[in-house]
């Protein structure tokens, strides 16, 4: 085998009461790549993510991670295998501080946290690593802030820092730059490129500039089905893709 596949789906399908949100998607993601999943609104991208991380159960099909079937594994178990997702709608712990948000993720790596008799001062040794991660996403100045008080773009940055805290082998990012100011988009794109140096990234992204810039491979989804795959140039010239995007914009 020449190519090293980290994640593969075979005939993955999800129906909601007969409506096919994801229809027989067979996807291969190569290790170490930045792979973009794009497509018009409602194409089934987020549903795909939900299937991959078992936040939803597929109607049919299989998922393999590192050659091992994870179709029936629990979301938490999948995360512990190193396949960690973010969410389209910013997912922070709103009433914890920014530092605590990241620390929750770092805390998971110390194993099960069932020790209710121990003081949480025992978590202080994680603070320096948490600060490094916050620094990487430009949130150093906000570590004492309550997460809910951050502006939207910074919440997204915090979410990425939290995901990174797990040092995942593969990250699933659902629209990481959505709702960000231009300068923040640049910073997050640069960060994704940096952290992708030693991991695999599968991301949903509507900002085509970011997609063009970052991704090695692109899969285009429309109405739950893969209509094109390849690099940015070949995909953007694909007639089906042009039709799908135009169709959705004129809808």
């Amino acid at each position: 085998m020449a190519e090293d596949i980290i994640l593969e789906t075979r005939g993955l399908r999800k129906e909601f009461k007969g409506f096919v949100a994801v229809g027989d998607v067979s996807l291969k993601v190569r290790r170490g790549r930045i792979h973009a999943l794009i497509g018009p609104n409602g194409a089934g991208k987020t549903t795909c993510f939900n299937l991959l991380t078992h936040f939803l159960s597929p109607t049919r099909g299989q998922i393999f991670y590192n050659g091992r079937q994870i179709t029936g594994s629990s979301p938490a178990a999948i995360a512990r295998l190193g396949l960690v997702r973010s969410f389209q709608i910013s997912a922070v712990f709103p009433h914890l501080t920014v530092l605590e948000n990241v620390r929750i993720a770092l805390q998971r790596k110390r194993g099960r946290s069932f020790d209710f008799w121990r003081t949480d001062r025992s978590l202080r040794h994680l603070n320096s690593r948490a600060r490094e991660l916050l620094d990487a996403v430009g949130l150093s100045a906000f570590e004492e802030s309550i997460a809910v008080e951050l502006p939207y773009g910074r919440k997204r940055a915090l979410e990425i820092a939290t995901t990174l805290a797990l040092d995942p082998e593969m990250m699933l990012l659902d629209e990481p730059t959505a709702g960000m100011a231009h300068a923040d988009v640049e910073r997050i794109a640069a960060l994704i490129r940096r952290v992708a140096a030693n991991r695999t990234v599968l991301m949903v992204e509507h900002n085509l500039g970011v997609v063009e810039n970052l991704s090695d491979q692109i899969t285009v989804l429309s109405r739950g089905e893969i209509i094109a795959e390849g690099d940015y140039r070949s995909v953007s010239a694909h007639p089906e893709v042009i039709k799908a995007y135009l169709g959705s914009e004129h809808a």
Partner: protein
Amino acid sequence: MSAVHELAPRAGGFAHQRIAAAVMIAFFALAPLVAYPVFLMKVMCFALFACAFNLLIGYGGLLSFGHAMFLGTAGYASAHAAKVWGFPPEFAILFGTACSALLGLVTGLLAIRRQGIYFAMITLALAQMVYFFYLQAPFTGGEDGIQAVPRGKLFGLLDLDSVWAMYALVFAVFVGGFLLIHRAVHSPFGQVLKAIRENEARALSLGYDVNRYKLLAYVLSATLAGLAGATKVLVFELASLTDAHWTMSGEVVLMVLLGGLGTVFGPVVGALIIISMENYLAQIGSWVTVVQGVIFVICVLTFRRGVIGELGRLIGKPL
């Protein structure tokens, strides 16, 4: 659960909480000089019960509507152990508490996968089943309950028939339970619990088996509620159906709401208010329930955060 979120204490600066804790402990240490010890013991038992309940709703975001089953189970178990098996008080309390912990584990496994109102409903249903079991089972004495439970000698030394010895025991149990809950809230476990309450999907996506954490919170809460129930039985030398009845589950909700959901001291203040009302308004008979209902409505309409929640907001620090 949005009310819970609003009340979540912020990080840092807990000095004022230490002071408040010292005030509370001093209050229960000195109050028996001026108030009836039995009344104060009752308050402490219910305060611990309410704190245990608050651990689950205030920090775990889980509304149980069946907590009376833990109060009642520990009560019957320890009363039976002390009276029929002749257990010394420390083992009777331990046995009763362990029974509630076990009941917590069994009911928790059934209930914990349900969310929100469904969780409340299933806990209520389970508690009703437990209640009917106690109503029918011969060892509980039905409507009469288990009476004349011997207090015995603590560690074979301290005769609990002395009101001061009994008071010291209840005081120690209450303070110990209170501190344990405080520690649990501020532990690595407590951090994860807060994260789950704040955003369950996110906690799950980070690799936390959220149901296990919830289950542990539930079992801890059940255990401490049981400790309160077992201790209360020794105080009153009586285990009765009242403790297992659904109105008891409602009463603890009322105490916590009145005092302040998700606050450290709210459940204690809530218990103090409700028990005082029941004691001093006893003359008006069943009207107590009506008065409680009215207070509940006023509380929900005007100071939603409860007494301690509003106080904490006034001084700008969580209490």
